[in-house]
């Protein structure tokens, strides 16, 4: 029974506080926040904390970090604490230990896309599911209501999503009505063509080492520090690729595969173990470094991921690596603290001599509609340049990439088709759509 009470119930209090606080802050505070982002250096760094070389931004978060650390001590059980803990680790100076010196660069290997990992081979089993639908559609002589139902079901089952499905089918219906499509076969072909068009809309080329703007011939060895000191030409920036995404999608494995491919084509690759949170993540990436003939920079577990990336860029410049591939910890996109941490990693990675040329969102093909939300947040936060769609060798179709492309303009650039180091192919929209049907 509701009765106005003088003292609100415990839970009402909590809701009230929880709601009132951000409203107060939002009302007055958003303006504060916006203005302060433009300024630097005005807020006090708490005494005793030393700004690391990596973080030359005087982050206002620092003072909040220190306070949050104190608060976190007394309340370690919040779901958000994983994020808070992650974002409030004091920057630990990385000692760059455990860099495994790489062997001499191997002979240039087979070009990208060739080799045992092809769509059709791996997707053979998965094909069966959907072709059943379209087989039924095609075998009927005409297009009727059941046809549309079956097409809709096929698309939904592929995780294309209600919105994109409705839109695609509405367009096709209009064309059928206008007489542009005359039968089920033509309809299926038109649907496939539409999907391919959507998936080809954005540029899916990778910014490979040596392919930077203005550079025509591949840069094999950037000048060493000694050479630069001797004035032997401009220091070329260090290309950095960031791998981001939620937990369990296959970021670390993908870094290993990409490293392998780049190393096979002659580039000197350096991995940055930017996942400093997950137990044994550095060890996992080290094993990939060995498989891929790449070097690796690791930091202290629980340390600041930005520092690791910074150190890696420095090392790459010093030792002449063509590219730094930075792994990051998996993070759910609705955890603001962790997304802030990621923004910082990107900022640090992009400071000269670092140049962020790819920010790849690694996405699990089994992901449903939440994939779109993930893409949206990561895109906004760190300017994702493309998607790596993993685990496509399973039964999941990965259709969410259609919505991601349609709504966000984000192309799929690479596809993961297994757990082996070679199981990586360039995205091919036509083959992808074909293999779905």
């Amino acid at each position: 029974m509701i009765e106005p009470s003088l003292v609100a119930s415990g839970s009402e209090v909590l809701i009230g506080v929880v709601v009132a606080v951000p409203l107060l802050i939002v009302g007055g505070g958003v303006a504060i926040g916006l203005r302060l982002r433009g300024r630097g250096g005005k807020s006090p760094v708490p005494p005793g904390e030393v700004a690391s070389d990596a973080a030359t931004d005087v982050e206002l978060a620092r003072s909040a970090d220190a306070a949050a650390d104190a608060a976190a001590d007394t309340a370690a059980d919040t779901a958000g604490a994983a994020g808070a803990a992650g974002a409030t680790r004091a920057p630990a100076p990385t000692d760059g230990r455990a860099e495994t010196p790489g062997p001499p660069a191997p002979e240039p290997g087979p070009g990208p896309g060739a080799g045992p990992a092809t769509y059709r081979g791996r997707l053979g089993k998965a094909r069966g599911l959907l072709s059943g639908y379209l087989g039924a559609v095609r075998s009927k002589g005409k297009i009727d209501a059941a046809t549309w139902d079956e097409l809709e079901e096929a698309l939904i089952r592929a995780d294309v999503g209600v919105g994109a499905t409705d839109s695609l089918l509405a367009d096709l219906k209009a064309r059928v009505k206008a007489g542009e499509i005359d039968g089920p076969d033509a309809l299926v072909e038109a649907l496939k063509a539409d999907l391919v068009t959507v998936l080809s809309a954005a540029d899916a080329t990778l910014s490979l080492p040596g392919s930077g703007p203005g550079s025509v011939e591949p840069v094999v060895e950037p000048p060493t520090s000694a050479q630069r000191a001797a004035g032997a030409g401009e220091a070329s920036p260090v290309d950095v690729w960031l791998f981001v995404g939620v937990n369990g999608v296959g970021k670390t494995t993908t870094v290993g595969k990409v490293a392998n491919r780049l190393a096979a084509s002659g580039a000197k690759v350096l991995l940055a173990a930017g996942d400093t949170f997950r137990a044994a993540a550095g060890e996992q990436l080290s094993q990939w470094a060995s498989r891929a003939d790449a070097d690796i920079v690791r930091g202290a577990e629980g340390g600041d991921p930005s520092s690791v990336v910074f150190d890696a860029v420095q090392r790459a410049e010093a030792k002449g690596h063509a590219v730094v591939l930075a792994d990051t910890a998996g993070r759910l996109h609705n955890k603001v603290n962790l997304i802030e941490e990621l923004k910082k990693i990107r900022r640090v990675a992009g400071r000269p001599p670092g140049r962020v040329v790819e920010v790849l969102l690694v996405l699990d093909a089994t992901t449903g509609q939440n994939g779109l939300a993930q893409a949206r947040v990561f895109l906004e936060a760190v300017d994702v340049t493309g998607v790596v769609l993993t685990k496509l060798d399973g039964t999941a179709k990965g259709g969410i990439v259609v919505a991601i492309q349609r709504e966000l303009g984000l192309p799929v650039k690479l596809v993961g088709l297994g757990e082996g180091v070679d199981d990586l192919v360039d995205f091919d929209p036509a083959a992808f759509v074909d293999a779905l049907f």
Partner: protein
Amino acid sequence: MFESLSDRFEGILSRLRSRGRLTDADVDEVLREIRTALLEADVEIGVVRGFTEAVRSRCVGLELSRALSPGQQVIKIVNEELVGILGGETLKITYASRPPTVILLAGLQGSGKTTASAKLARWFKQQGRNPLLVGADLQRPAAVEQLRVLGGQAGISVFSDTTDPVAVAVAGLEEAKRLGRDVLVVDTAGRLSIDEDLMDEIRRIAGAVDPHYTFLVIDAMTGQDAVSTASAFHDALSLDGVILTKLDGDARGGAALSVKEVVGRPIAFASTGEKLDDFDQFHPDRMADRILGMGDVLSLIEQAERTMDQDVATKGAAAMIEGRFTLEDFLEQLQQVKKMGSMSGVLSLLPGVPKDLKQASSAVDDRQIGQVEAIIRSMTPGERVDPAIIDGARRVRIANGSGTATSDVNALLKQFKEMQKMMKGLGKGGMGGALGGLGGMFGRGGPKLSPQAMAEMAAMGGPGGDLGGLAGMGGDPAAFGGGMAPTGARGAGGSRGSARPKGKGGKKGKGGGRVTPKAR
């Protein structure tokens, strides 16, 4: 573009108030909306079909009640059906008469098995058992090491070897017997359901250690594939239950419904974060709300109660209501809120929160909380208690002290004054009045629930009624009212720290049952 389910229903059904019953045509329209909502929530399309049929049979000819709007009635039915499927038998672990009780975890790559293994073992330890972990994932680089680190954190030893997964599992079982452990938790490598070799391998592992419980670990953000994967694992292993992971994300989690429907075994546990203690019993009623896009208020309350200092919060509330809430009090409350983690995460759990507020709030981060804190800390105690004395000179001093501009200080003071006024409303109209006022603050003064409507909801929802006031916020009472009402006694309960109602009573679900292990 999120539009609440009941909003959609209201649109369809608003014209029905004059008529007495729902017709076939009405029901068809409503079912289309339900179908869309469930598909958007990633419920598998076949499961959606079956579900909507079940709802149809309950809706056709439904006599419209006078207390609830048709939309609310339909939501209630949908919610009950969902909870019925998601709930049902609870998994009760029955320990083997001859220890150890063997638990086997299986699932796709990246679903969270290794973390879940450690959490589960820790859970058993908390139940007073003496578990041993077995790292049988020899495929993923450093998987065993990861388990060792987690085991170390939980104080549970981990057994592994470098032979092959079946041999490791067997050896682990022997080791458990040798050490006198009474529970064995076996982590395995992720595997595709269509990988015949690996599915064969997990069958062999199961054959070798004869688990008492086999759990499928599945990611809450899984899409349509959930059914195909769950069926395949169930066929291979005869699952006893499911562990749903990464529920701290914002995926609606329709996979839970799909898997439950297809496997027919309980969802035993919910993993709600990356830390070892982020492991709870699964709550069907909360999952139902979440799938329908209605947020998870109870989790929010639990989170709040867990992390906030109750005394501080209540003291602050008393001050709020009695109109003597000062900046000092606010500073204290700020600390509490900071403990709860990200603002947007917290707000995203509240239904009926206007979207722009959610978006604006996601811009609020520790940085901004830090700023507000700094400003207040730069005030003297006297200023905090009575901001009216803060003149121009004081504002400049405060601004300088906190590294902000005087306009920031002005803005904060102004907002605070508004908030004080609004808080006075807490004493009078209850939370609804206060929060309705909040809506007004942002120019979105939504229709507050009439006292009669609130009373009706209270009557329906028992002690849950006092959360009805939240509907006043954001101008979306129907959505929230509709959402909260069917879930019955799962409201705030009106007292802090008290046991929460279990959420299964009074529903049409089957009573709590026992799942006994397979006969050995």
